């Protein structure tokens, strides 16, 4: 794999940016070139959030992922908005606990994973993002398992280090899903 462009999208509060950050950090540990770019808006709560992650062996040009290799859609508006942009042969990962609608594209690999439910069922409310990232890791192998864990460690600020284990657990639930 040389280039991988991923678009994470969902509601604000679902940990979209964090999932991207873990992926970015893991890729850095892997020795890749990479970029992480969030969508941003006025600070009012609500609305959608998304972030672009590019990893490559070469210098990253545009960090804005317009045509993702992988789309992670954690809510319906995100799927509706970005589905058409995925490159043919690409992948769409959907949190099927939240997005009931089917993906209509047939030229991409579609993965529906009950991420929110899996997380909640395992006492990891709010960690659906990591479940999905685990699955994304399994599907693409964008880095080694070690580096994924290192990426997670680097992404969690010192003050919230208590959340590390839960996130690890969620990641592995995703990997094993």
């Amino acid at each position, binding site marked *: 794999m040389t280039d991988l462009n991923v678009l994470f999208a969902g509601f604000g509060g679902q940990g979209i940016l964090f999932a991207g950050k873990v992926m*970015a950090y893991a890729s*850095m540990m892997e020795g890749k070139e990479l*970029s*992480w*770019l*969030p969508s*941003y*808006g006025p*600070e009012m709560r609500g609305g959608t959030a998304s972030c672009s992650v590019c990893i490559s062996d070469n210098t990253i*040009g545009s960090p804005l992922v317009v045509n993702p290799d992988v789309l992670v859609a954690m809510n319906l508006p995100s799927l509706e908005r970005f589905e058409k942009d995925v490159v043919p042969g690409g992948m769409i990962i959907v949190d099927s606990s939240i997005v009931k609608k089917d993906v209509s594209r047939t030229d991409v690999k579609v993965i529906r994973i009950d991420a929110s439910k899996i997380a909640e069922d395992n006492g990891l409310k709010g960690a659906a993002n990591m479940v999905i990232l685990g699955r994304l890791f399994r599907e693409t192998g964008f880095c080694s398992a070690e580096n994924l864990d290192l990426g997670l460690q680097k992404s969690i600020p010192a003050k919230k280090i208590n959340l590390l284990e839960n996130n690890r657990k969620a990641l592995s639930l995703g990997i094993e899903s």
Partner: protein
Amino acid sequence: MNEKVLMKGNEAIAEAAIAAGCRHFFGYPITPQTEVAAYMSKRMPKIDGVYLQAESEVASINMVLGAGAAGVRVMTSTSSPGVSLMAEGISYLAGSDVPCLIVNVQRGGPGLGGIQPSQADYHQATKSTAHGDFHILVFAPSTVQETVDLISTAFDLGDKYRMPAMVLSDGMLGQMMEPVVLPEPKEPDNDSKEWAASGHQNKRAHNVVNSLYINPQELESLVIARYERYAEIEENHQMAEEYLADDADIIIVAYGSSSRVSRSAIDAARKQGIKVGMIRPITLWPFPKKVISKHAEHAKAFLSVEMSMGQMVDDVRLVVNGRVPVEFYGRTGGVIPTPKEILGEIVRINGGVQ
């Protein structure tokens, strides 16, 4: 060497400034640069530095003038409308020969505009930040690492030539994270400016930091002396990156964010066999005239790609001076062009030059 870390462009600006020995930051919040100030407000109190949130951009730039006049390394950061409010103060800084660093994390305009990335402040930065004859140094990084590197260059050249320097970033470069290696921190050097108004300690005549000269001949001669320094800078400090430019028929000129998108488009075009390359200005003032002029000898066309309605393109035209056509492609208002759109332009122009 320092460890590689993942950092937001805006945070990297702050940390790089601290590493460059800057201990004085005055600013006013504005999206999409708020992280610079937030970061400074966390770090400065820990390192005996000054972080002060001013009541406005007008106050910020004048605090910068005061601290700069007192001889310390000082900076502010803001976004587009904030620079407009700083205009008068920047003119005073230039007219009083006080160095400082101003960061503009550009957003869409005019007016309140929007908060998405833009490059529509190019003319403001390079031609006429405010009234009167003067220039400021303008640096345009395209990666987080380069942002870090240019911060210290900006401070150093500003000090050397006693003039304000600007780092012209934008919402995309400010918000994105990339791996970055921070430089070894420099000790602050706040006591070596002999012209500074920091108290003469009864050891020298009083220093006056001032931009008023009622006698026009006196004012003129100061301005001319300043323009001689500017000429020296234009001679010695033009910076640009050339990317596949040597054999190129079409040369894209693009800086900052739009140069990244252009690079993607160039890679795609090269795959189609189109001989396209890029000159990426790193200094916008001084504009990298030499390298553009050199390539105007072999290129068949230039294309200026900007996130504006076309501003830098005039500077390219001035250098090319009619030798070959200079075209423009741009998006504005916070829209980031896609590699595909630019590729389309390349293909179109390539059709013409063949």
